């Protein structure tokens, strides 16, 4: 499968401009004959929305969402927005649209609420991780912080996920020492997740600056064999295309049958307190 990593720079709270940005990138990815295009977390709205969350929130029948979903007749699309649920709660979500249909909506479960983050103040948390069937196999979405918790990757793995998408809004921080601390954590985690779960993994992080905070980009993809197949430059609005093979999942599971040998009852017994 041919995946387009759309490392965009959304405008803060300007959904109309961001929709246009999506359309441009989708058009380019279609021209490049990609099967799927992945946008960063909250790609339709930008990140530091604060009180603006409820104003830019959309339901799935919103004109903009319908428009992107309609564009998915030519290419599968992973994109992010603020979702207003039936319960009138607001969620940080990433959607998977395919063949003109909204296939899956993942609500971010782990809302960071420490140091520079205050997502839990503005968003309601999703309650579950799940997989969904697509033309490119069984997929799962983890939004940024979700992917840094072992519960999420464990559950997706046991559900038989084959490709994991991680849309992200990771800010540049920690320039003391060599390299960017935030980038180092993500690169380690992405490689680990792809290798240990033996799944293909696509991480797309945004770029741009909001209120002095720069998002570092550096989007990347790993094969199920744990090898890095792509890494986009840092701090630059750009797109990259990567080929990921289903066959790599098979090969990885022959070489490293961690997925086969996992014994979930050990975890279950532990959680039960036995």
């Amino acid at each position, binding site marked *: 499968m041919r995946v387009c990593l759309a490392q965009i720079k959304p*405008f*803060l*709270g*300007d959904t109309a401009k961001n929709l246009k940005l999506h359309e441009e990138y989708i058009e380019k990815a279609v021209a490049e004959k990609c099967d799927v295009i992945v946008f960063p977390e909250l790609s339709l709205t930008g990140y*530091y*929305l*604060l*009180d*603006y969350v409820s104003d830019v929130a959309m339901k799935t029948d919103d004109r903009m969402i319908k428009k992107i979903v309609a564009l998915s007749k030519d290419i599968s699309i992973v994109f992010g927005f603020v979702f207003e649920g039936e319960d009138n709660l607001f969620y940080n979500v990433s959607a998977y649209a395919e063949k003109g249909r909204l296939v899956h909506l993942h609500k971010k479960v782990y809302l960071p609420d420490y140091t520079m983050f205050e997502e839990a103040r503005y968003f309601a948390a999703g309650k579950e991780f799940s997989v969904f069937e697509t033309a490119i196999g069984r997929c799962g979405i983890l939004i940024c912080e979700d992917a840094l918790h072992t519960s999420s990757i464990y559950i997706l793995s046991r559900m038989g996920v084959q490709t994991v998408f991680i849309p992200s809004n990771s800010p*540049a921080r920690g*320039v*003391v*020492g*060599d*390299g*960017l601390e935030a980038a180092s954590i993500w690169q380690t985690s992405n490689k680990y997740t792809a290798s240990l779960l033996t799944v293909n993994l696509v991480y797309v992080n945004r770029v*741009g*600056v*909001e*209120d*002095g905070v*720069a998002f570092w980009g550096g989007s990347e993809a790993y094969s199920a064999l744990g090898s890095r197949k792509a890494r986009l430059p*840092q*701090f630059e609005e750009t797109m990259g295309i990567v080929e990921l093979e289903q066959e790599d999942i098979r090969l990885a599971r022959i070489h490293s049958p961690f997925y086969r040998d996992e014994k979930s009852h050990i975890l279950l017994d532990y959680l039960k307190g036995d």
Partner: protein
Amino acid sequence: MKLDLKLTKQILTTFVKEETEKIGLKSVVLGLSGGIDSALSAAIAVEALGRGRVFGVGLPYKLSSRESMADAELVADALGINLEIADITPFAEPFIESEKDMSKLRIGNVLARMRMVTIFDRSAKHGGIVLGTSNKTELLLGYGTWYGDLASAINPIGDLYKTQVWELSEYLGIPDKVIKKQPTADLWPDQTDEGELGFTYKDVDRLLYEMVDNRRRKPELLKMGFDEDFVQKISERIMRYQFKRKIPVIAKVSQRTIGRDFRYSRDWGY
């Protein structure tokens, strides 16, 4: 505390470029004092926008040292940026003389605020954003004039300690003379920052880095060898000058009060 210099430069230039251009402006305006902080800020702006879009303003007062302005010119020449000299004496002097026996501190504050009036005026003239030049050490110690040199629209070096300012300045090729000279606000003759503060930047930065960035508490700091009085004095200073780092306190009456529960990013809509 050692920076990854290449990355730091990349983050700071991205910051200046985007925060300037996203609001529709093309250039930046900043006061060039002849010191290292303004030199570094200007150098970052040049990397971000190109030299033609950086406007430096030299703001001497009649008692300023001649060396300061000579160094400002040195920096402007080295970076190839526009430099305008705006002597603040003709309007600062009547103000200072209108009150008898103004203290050194008051005069210093008046000068810093006169300079800021001038810089903001030039920003309107050039259609440029005002670039702040206060570093993290000064901000934490409250060592600056509120609505004077602490005022700005965007600040590229406010998260760098003075020690890191020196380090990054070398990397960006700031003239050696400016890097090596004694830091001074030049508010009165022979003033030096370290003389006035009573400790060196190197010492206080080591302590601030452990206190602020690494969140070390007092017992740990003492174990690390920091002097108890010094730790106490700096802790109190950080607390005492918190007001300079915040918007004014607004009395809460309504459901939603600006800054407290009316909360939007400044870049809202950009």
